[in-house]
């Protein structure tokens, strides 16, 4: 089918403002949007700035806004976003982060927020050199957070960051903290508490669910954030009672 792909372009060396450019291209309905973008880059406009790698939704490189919604380009089939011949697909870079070039955004703040919550294993000291014990049901407790590929979609979709508080820690960082806080082998929740329990931290979340809708890995982000809020409240209560 013939489709029109409208892409927001911005070259920091020549442009003062972003602008839209239109490309007409033939595409198979069952093919990936990423394949179409790479075809445009190869045959029509090599200057298109785009990040991509695995092309099947596990590396998180090609998150972008497609027809107004955050998607991974390699997990989006043309038929999902273009219904008939002549349909227009609008493509923009992720939101809430500065644009570096075209569809490439500066992820520094996203990764800084991620690092902020101490997103690594802090176990108790252990004797012996075998594995920590963990039952299948204990393993399920933190399954959600392990699926995260740090694709930045949730951060982009968050209306709090966009309209209310640009300093909000963001959904991914909280999910990554929860991955460890809920891991029966981890003992680091005390160290992570201060990194979550502040106004721009977990409490800025307003349960708007846009993150959950945007997540290409189907992580129940809002639920995880709210469970973490509850856990923090309980911990603080226990601390007061002592």
């Amino acid at each position, binding site marked *: 089918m013939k489709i029109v792909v409208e892409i927001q372009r911005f*070259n*920091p*060396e*020549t442009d003062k403002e972003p602008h839209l450019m239109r490309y007409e291209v033939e595409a198979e309905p*069952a093919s*990936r949007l990423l394949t179409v973008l*790479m075809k445009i*880059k*190869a*045959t029509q406009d*090599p*200057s*298109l*700035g*785009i*990040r*991509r*790698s*695995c*092309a*099947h*939704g*596990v*590396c*998180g*490189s090609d998150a972008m806004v497609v027809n107004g919604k955050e998607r991974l380009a390699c*997990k989006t*089939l043309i038929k999902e976003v273009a219904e008939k011949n002549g349909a227009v697909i609008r493509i923009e870079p992720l939101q809430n982060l500065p644009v*570096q*070039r*075209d569809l*490439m955004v500066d*992820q520094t703040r996203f990764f800084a927020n991620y*690092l902020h919550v*101490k*997103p*690594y*294993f802090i*176990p108790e000291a*252990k004797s012996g*050199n*075998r*594995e*920590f*014990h*963990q*039952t*299948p049901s*204990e*393993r399920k407790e*933190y*399954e959600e957070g*392990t*699926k995260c*590929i*740090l694709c930045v979609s949730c951060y982009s979709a968050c209306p709090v960051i966009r309209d209310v508080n640009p300093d909000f820690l963001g959904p991914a960082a909280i999910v990554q903290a929860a991955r*460890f806080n809920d*891991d029966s*082998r*981890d003992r680091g929740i005390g160290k992570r508490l201060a990194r979550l329990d502040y106004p721009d931290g977990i409490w800025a979340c307003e349960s708007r669910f846009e993150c959950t809708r945007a997540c290409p890995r189907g992580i129940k982000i809002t639920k995880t954030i709210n469970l973490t809020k509850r856990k923090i409240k309980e911990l603080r209560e226990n601390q007061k009672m002592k």
Partner: protein
Amino acid sequence: MFEYDALIIGAGGAGLYAALEAGKKGKTAVLSKLYPVRSHTGAAQGGIGAALGNVEEDRPDWHAFDTVKGGDYLTDQNAAILLAEDAVRAVYDLENKGLPFSRTVAGLIDQRKFGGHTRNFGEAPVRRSCYAADRTGHMILQTLYQQCLKNGVAFYNEFIVIDVLIHENKCGGVIALDLATGELHLFRAKAVLFATGGLGRMFRITSNAYANTGDGQAVLSRKGVPLEDMEFFQFHPTGMHGLGILITEGVRGEGGILRNARGERFMERYAPTLLDLAPRDMIARAIHTEIRKLRGIRGDGSVNDYVHLDAAHLGESVIGEKLPDIAEFSRTYLGIDPAEEPIPVQPTAHYAMGGIPTDLDGRVLFNARGHAFAGLYAAGECACVSVHGANRLGTNSLVELIVYGRRAGRHMGQFVAEADFPALAPDATGPAKNRMQKLKSEGDGAGGEELRKKMQDTMTASVGIYRNGEDMTQAVDTLQELRERYKEVRAVDQSKRFNTHVLEILELGNLLDLALISATCALKRTESRGAHARRDYPERKDGRWLKHTLAWLEADKVVLGDKPVDISRWKPKARTY
């Protein structure tokens, strides 16, 4: 100019592990052309092979033997024994760093069957693969990156290494392009480790990421470093039809079965004992043969034909718990639910057994006699120890990253603690600067897309699963011609900042060099062994060919040599399953 004791090039499993080790002893930085969490280690699915014996009896001995036989006896046996022994410690180490393995009811790391892994030297399949659903690679990459953050490892993200500085057999650093600014930078070092991954993008249909373009192998090769066993490239039997996206061997480890158009479990004819858990090269050839004999699902014997991977009998629950990602790929891209219908699969270019030759400590060798450069290391898929010989067993790649990535990092650490910065050659940065200038200069040749397509078509048709002398001879000529034409390629986009077009042209140059080397080595080896299968030489010939191939790229010629194989433990035998 930047100065570090140790530089790691590549931020996948091997690179990150090496960084953790080297960082204990010296000022270390990782240069990666991708953000580390985008590295292709993250796409690995099936598991890490290690003889923990959590689910049934197992021994490192058996694992080592399976690896040697799986490699069709081209595996260096000392390397395989070391891999299997250290695998156990390495898996516990990963778990102790937080890796979220799937668990047995008793709370131990769970293990499942995998192709070519047996108990008691080939008796029957054994549960050796330690796994995290079908996302084991993702978990390893995330865990190691988290540990690097915890330990304050320095990262230079989206820096592309375009040249390595070697002078009097000592490595003194690299030249890297900063994607953000378009500037070249000299990184001076006492030691450099390359962990840049594979080169599947030589082929048209591949499980590999766009980023897998053999950068480490190419950069070193152009500087006079030999490459080893480049003719051995694995085609994974079960890529998704038409797309090449990997469907893990773990599906068959859980009980999935390959069927032809007649519904037959055709592996009964090709590997009576191991069936669908035979080594990958054997299954890829079996599928190829079934299709050629018009027993593929389409029945037309064309390149578009395929077979079925039937996992419906496993049930929704097992698939949901143990194979959730591949179920999602199948639903997303083909509209097929594996719990209901079989998945259409065909072989896909997957893994490079060959690469930069190293010793057991990851030191890069410059000849067949085991002499190593000072301060130059390689680990992971871009290296060739050789742990995989002529064919790699599933789950052995992830083990290799953590065993040999760690060993290389350790040796590096010890080395830089005592070494001085080596002298650089006069005008060390000249060649890299000239190359970039040429790309940006006026010229007729545009970006090179046509060359890329022709290379991939040539490699797929002539240096694929089944090869013959005539086609390979033609392929070598074609690739030489493409390399000539590549010299005229110029960047259409001349901007400096975030110029991904220039990056793609550099990557294409790497692939062309490596494709020529691979095709030349494949043409030279007149036998069939492991993944290298020739219609004109269908037998394995140990008398003449039980040796590794070495290849030097000298300007526009490939010069070949060889290197002995360590067969000190098991006598090579016929490889049947």
